């Protein structure tokens, strides 16, 4: 479904991603872990098409298409969704209007009928229950004045409404208490099907107790330095990221010897 090869990306003069290889097949959940500043959000934003990042090398294909050649909205319409680490506030645009515009844009791209506000209300009510969101938020401006937890839940409402084939969750767990975390994870799990894939970016192992990954990758210094199964997350939890970095430098020293 998604194939990333030798991906390098800069912001300004700084190279942040220094050669990423990652393949996500249909139905798989991949966790991407790593210390702060290692480039996890950069990877997520590059997949979503953020214009501030410049891809300098490598390729990303999605269903055989050159993803890097697509506009952000085309990526969304093709079924990619990024739940932002820092969701953006849009004062003056209501959630209801925004969600319906997004829903209709994606439906239109799929050749489906657009829905009117009344039909959409039905869609919404169901999705909001999924993450226990108060319907009054529909009339509030997108994320404006939302608490950190509300913003994260709102990302999951959008995810549920747009029903993407590849979901990328960027630290959706940070800032959530354990109850909210469980609600969000349950919501995500309910949306799982064998056709859909996800990349779950997280700093902590905690979320992976609820959203169980098939693969875990450790990103450090803009590279994937270790990959494994779900047990890798537990090892990281136990030993910390230093463990990987030490192992890396040990391996580096060994190969040079």
């Amino acid at each position, binding site marked *: 479904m998604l194939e990333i090869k030798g991906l390098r990306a800069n912001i300004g003069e700084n190279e942040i991603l220094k050669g990423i290889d990652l393949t996500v097949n249909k139905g798989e959940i991949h966790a991407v872990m790593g210390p702060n500043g290692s480039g996890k959000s950069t990877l997520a934003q590059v997949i979503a098409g953020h*214009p501030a990042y410049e891809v300098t090398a490598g390729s990303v294909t999605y269903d055989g298409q050159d993803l890097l050649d697509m506009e952000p909205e085309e990526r969304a319409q093709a079924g990619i969704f990024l739940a932002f680490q820092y969701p953006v506030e849009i004062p003056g645009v209501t959630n209801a209007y925004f969600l319906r515009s997004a829903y209709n844009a994606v439906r239109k791209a799929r050749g489906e009928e657009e829905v009117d506000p009344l039909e959409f209300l039905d869609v919404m009510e169901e999705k909001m229950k999924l993450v226990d969101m108060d319907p009054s938020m529909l009339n509030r401006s997108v994320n404006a004045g939302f608490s950190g937890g509300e913003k994260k839940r709102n990302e999951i409402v959008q995810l549920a409404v747009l029903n993407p084939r590849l979901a990328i969750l960027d630290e959706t767990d940070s800032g959530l208490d354990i109850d909210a975390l469980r609600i969000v994870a349950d919501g995500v799990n309910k949306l799982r099907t064998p056709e859909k894939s996800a990349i779950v970016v997280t700093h902590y192992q905690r979320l992976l107790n609820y959203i169980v990954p098939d693969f875990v990758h450790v990103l450090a210094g803009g590279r994937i330095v270790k990959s494994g199964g779900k047990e890798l997350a537990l090892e990281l939890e136990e030993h910390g990221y230093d463990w990987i970095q030490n192992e890396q430098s040990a391996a580096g020293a060994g190969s040079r010897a």
Partner: protein
Amino acid sequence: MTQPETAVDHYVGMFESLDHAEAGGAGELRRRAMDRFAGLGFPTMKNEDWHYTSVAPIATRSFNRTGSPTSLSAGELDQYLFDSPDWTRLVFVDGWLAPELSSVHDHPGVQISDLSSMLREGGKVPQLGTIADHETVAFTALNTALMQDGAVITVAGNVEVAQPIHLVFLSAHPVPQAASFPRNLVVLEKGARATVIESYVGLRDESYLTVSVTEIALGEGARLEHIKVQNESAGAFHVATIQARQERDSDLHSFSYASGAELSRTNVNTLLDGSGSSCTMNGMYMVSGSQHVDHQTSIEHAQPNTTSREIYKGILDGHSHGVFNGKVYVRPEAQKTDGKQSNNNLLLSDHARVDTKPQLEIFADDVKCTHGATVGRLDEVALFYMKSRGLDAEQARTLLIYAFAADVLEEITVKPVKDALEAAVFARVRGGKLEMASD
């Protein structure tokens, strides 16, 4: 630069040729105002009130009043009106009342007449010329000397006029370089309430000039909702002054919307002359191409415990130029003044420009006054966020522009006007940039 003598002479000549009947009950007032205009001349950019707006395009042309209203059918108006049949509507075409397009609903305690017939009957119009300043303000002097027609509205004490009164000023001048000089007077006596809407629209693309003045007197505890909608033609020049005087506990709620004209200047001024009086002055301007839009507001806190709230927003595209100057004066006796002002501008092109100048002059010590001005562009992060949800670039820009304007439009309490202006903004920002003003 010196201005051509001829510009002023032209209007003096026009004044001399007014027939006696028309000059009517305001003959002396007109003459005094004409003398003042001749003395003042058109303002230059050296005048600090005109620092960012050159009136050379007006001063170098010779505009002539159209003698009688161009005849129009009711159908030609429809697209400019947002009123409903139960509103009183006075339509002025080329500066003159068009009775066949107007309808006045009788309401106990409310007098609505047209200025021209009041003056023609030799009658005096109390308070006319006592609120707006024709002594030092050139355009007010010019309007006062040459005023044609307009509404004179008086609402008796404690009378509430539930339905808005809509004054429509249409320019349909049959020849280019025409001018109209509308003049209105709104008097709300103690405790009266009313809503007055002024619409300015142009039906022709030729260059023409509108110079209007509206005087407002609010008695104790009176409340006026005043909305001005400026949708003049693309080639028009428009200079309007709204000047209010407020007694104690009165409230003026004003909105000025400007999207038309090649060059427009709107002055909204009030004198909070009674303790406990308050005003809200909001507005929005939306321009593109080579349009120039200027708002100057003045709020004078002259008595204690007076309150003012002001929000103006501007959206500018193309090579347009916006000017906002918000003056707030607090006199020494105006303790406990509470004033808030903001002006926010959204630039949609690299060539659009805004000059915004808050101007607070505070001579009392126990006051709370704040102001803020911003000039910004569309938020790239928000645009990306919206695109990442499937909205295309145009849709995302349109929504953000609309959102920028939404909160100030929300302040308009007359729903049909609010809806019409929202629709106008939406229609104009379609495609994520401003279409040219069209008429």
